[in-house]
């Protein structure tokens, strides 16, 4: 089983070219949100954190829906599949293309958030809390991407995307129920507690496992249909 790496690279570059303007917009909106956070005022923190969440969720949904669901709906998928690629090449290109288009705003805004926490009057305890929020977004993105790649139904893909993203609300609520996490948010010190590390590690491992399983599942398909 060999990969057609040159064509995979071209398909990833194609996805990047298709979405780069919109992604730049998301990064810009995220930077505006970080500016609000950096003001370190209660109202600005509320506006900034809400805006940051909206931007991250939108970037995740945009990446999946445009590169998979819209491609299927607008029948450009048939064009891609007619190129010299196997189902595995196609899966790898979609996983890599999505990883790239999501990773760019994700990494930029995660880095920006952590920098804002560390270098503004905001309490440093938010550092771990922010990482936990971003880890959940990564997990929700991985689940949404896996479902969108595995089902042809737009309805199920949308349900998985919205469902997993909306669950961030109860997740945040649940985090507030863990004293080792909630009590350290307002402390001006960076403290790694066991529950925080465990949740973080679980979410990262689960995200990678979901993406890995998706790739493995598609690698076994001999044909597209």
């Amino acid at each position, binding site marked *: 089983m060999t990969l*057609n790496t040159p064509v995979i690279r071209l398909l990833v570059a*194609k996805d990047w*070219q298709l979405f780069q303007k919109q992604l730049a917009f998301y990064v810009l909106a995220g930077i505006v949100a970080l500016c609000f956070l950096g003001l370190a005022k209660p109202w600005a923190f509320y506006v900034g954190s809400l805006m940051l969440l909206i931007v991250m969720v939108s970037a995740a949904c945009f990446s999946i829906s445009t590169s998979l669901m819209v491609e299927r709906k607008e029948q*450009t998928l048939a*064009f891609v599949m007619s*190129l010299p690629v*196997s189902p595995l*090449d196609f899966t790898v290109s979609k996983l890599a293309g999505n990883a790239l288009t999501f990773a760019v705003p994700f990494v930029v805004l995660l880095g920006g958030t952590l920098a804002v926490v560390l270098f503004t009057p905001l309490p440093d305890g938010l550092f771990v809390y922010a990482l936990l929020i971003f880890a959940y977004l990564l997990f929700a993105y991985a689940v949404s991407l896996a479902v969108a790649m595995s089902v042809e139904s737009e309805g199920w893909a949308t349900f998985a995307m919205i469902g997993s993203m909306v669950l961030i609300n109860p997740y945040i609520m649940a985090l507030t129920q863990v004293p080792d996490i909630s009590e350290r948010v307002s402390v001006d010190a960076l403290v790694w507690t066991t529950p925080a590390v465990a949740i973080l590690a679980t979410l990262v491992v689960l995200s990678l496992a979901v993406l890995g399983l998706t790739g493995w599942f598609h690698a076994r398909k001999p044909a*597209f249909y």
Partner: protein
Amino acid sequence: MTLAFSLSGIAKRYPHFALQDVSLDLPEGQVMGLVGVNGAGKTTLLRLLTGLAAPDSGEVQVLGHRLPEGQVDAKRDIGFASEDMRLYRGQTLRWHMDLVSRIYPGWDEPYADDLVKRFELRPEQVLGGFSHGQRVKALLLLCLARRPRLLLLDEPTTGLDPVARLEVLEALADVLRDESRSVLFSSHNTHDVEQLADSITFLHKGRLVASADKHAFVDSWRRVVCQGALPAGLDAWPEIASARANGSVVEIKARAWNDQLPARLAAQGLQVQRADPMALEDIFVTAVRSGGVA
């Protein structure tokens, strides 16, 4: 004889449709027209030939590669365009040409430019502004300029206005002058098939109804007008696809016309008045309605 593709004993089942027991060869350099009504199995057959679908049973060989395993190597030499295939609406034709030219080393830029002029396309225009006819031409351009050994076209002229259809057919006719290039194109339009194809294959309800050289095939059919009463059991003759009476006039459509047939009909009390060649469309409709393999 080198084969562009060979299908043997192919079956492919979907929940509401099945392609059954299809065996079909296309010699290199030949043009085959694939005719069938909607849902006959033309698209499924083309998907099998591109490796996009795997057969449930049987073997698919394309350009010397077994599919779907060898689909990447086979698709390097296949140009495939289907009626349900779309290009990226937000990107220009030039962007698509650049993408495809980087994938196919055989991309012929002067030929691509020639096709741009012939099809009167604007390379810098985004595809979202293209008409249906322009989109079809753009897809064909992307297929033809890569100089494929095998061209697979699924309903290339569907939905085109007469002028666009003529332009597309002319471009295809030019391609067909290259004797090493093989073409399979599907259509409901039997006129297109009659114009371009060397051989004809009829598909109906997932089964191969007929596959033969175009001239020999068309020549084997006749519409026979007779005087007399319609004898019972005429439909059961293997040479007869259909027979119906209108008063004392009997119209017979014969799928295997031969010189002995008038005498045999006369022995049944039918006087043959005339035996006319049939148009491909009439042959197709008759073959499909009679349900038998021609």
